[in-house]
């Protein structure tokens, strides 16, 4: 049991003032995606690059079809400048047909390829592929594969749970990097939480140091190779009896 000598207050008691969800640890794939997007946007580059992104979300699965995702990628390339004539022409043609019908997926892909060809380099970042409905995911991956075949300088960054790797591997040769919490990241998160703690009177320097030492070690240990570890069952963190 962790206890700071003299204070009588243990780490678990103090930490109970927070709800520390792992989702809040700022270590999730979603944060990694936003970091990569910002890094690409901030990096000085000699040639003009275009960056398009999308965050999949299980709460909006019905709307997140392959054609809508490909469409929003196209939208982001288009808004960088004037709407290219080929996009405008496709829109006007569609508008005059059956009261403005939308493009079909193959047509949307074709228009996107034309838009990509305008740029020396295009990055496409799609977060949380596993949150797509399976039928939409397959169509999306097949669409991206077609884009890569015709535009080999395009770079695609995707995140998701490990189980989507099988589907991804069916469509592309990929480099894969596991995302797991790093000690530095957890410490940074804890420091931020402690700085924002409104009950400063209950925290001493010794206890603060102990929290910053013990919890990152414990979380890192638990996250190595894990998928379903429930931190609330950890004896050190839940034993309030000292």
């Amino acid at each position, binding site marked *: 049991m962790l206890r700071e000598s003299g204070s009588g207050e243990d780490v*678990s008691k103090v*930490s*109970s003032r927070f709800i*520390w*969800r792992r*989702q*809040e*640890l*700022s270590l*999730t*794939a979603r*944060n*990694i995606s*936003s*970091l*990569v997007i910002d890094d690409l946007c901030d990096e000085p580059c000699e040639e003009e690059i275009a960056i398009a*992104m999308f965050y999949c979300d299980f709460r909006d699965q019905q709307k997140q079809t392959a054609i*809508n*995702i490909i*469409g*929003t990628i*196209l*939208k982001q390339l288009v*808004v960088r400048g*004037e*709407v290219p004539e080929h*996009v*405008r022409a496709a*829109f006007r043609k569609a*508008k005059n047909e059956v009261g403005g019908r*939308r493009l079909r997926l193959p047509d*949307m892909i074709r228009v996107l390829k034309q838009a990509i060809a305008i740029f020396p*380099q295009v990055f496409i970042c799609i977060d*949380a592929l596993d949150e797509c409905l399976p039928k939409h995911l397959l169509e999306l991956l097949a669409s991206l594969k077609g884009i*890569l075949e015709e535009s*080999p300088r395009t*770079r*695609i*960054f*995707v*995140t*998701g*749970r490990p189980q*989507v*790797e099988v589907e*991804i591997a069916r469509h*592309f040769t*990929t*480099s894969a*990097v596991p*995302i*797991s919490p790093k000690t*530095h*990241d957890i410490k940074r*998160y804890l420091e931020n939480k402690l700085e924002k703690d409104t009950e400063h009177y209950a925290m001493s320097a010794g206890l603060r140091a102990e929290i910053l030492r013990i919890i990152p070690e414990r979380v890192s240990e638990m996250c190595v190779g894990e*998928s379903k570890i*429930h931190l*609330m069952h950890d004896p050190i*963190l*839940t034993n309030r009896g000292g």
Partner: protein
Amino acid sequence: MNKVTADENPEIMQWLSPLDPRGRHQDVRTDRLDGVGNWLLETNEFREWRSNEGGADKAVLFCYGNPGVGKTYLR
């Protein structure tokens, strides 16, 4: 750009897709802590992907992990 084409642009954007991820991206990046996750940017996989060094074989970078769910707490 003439007025007709400028007026048409919002309609074209909506026609292309009803999805707009910009607000979501802003929310996520606002909550992100500086320095967290920077290790990824230093990996060989990311650098090769970013720089095109790996050619077509390194065109897709997949980062995988098990995101926390709301039910998993550290108390």
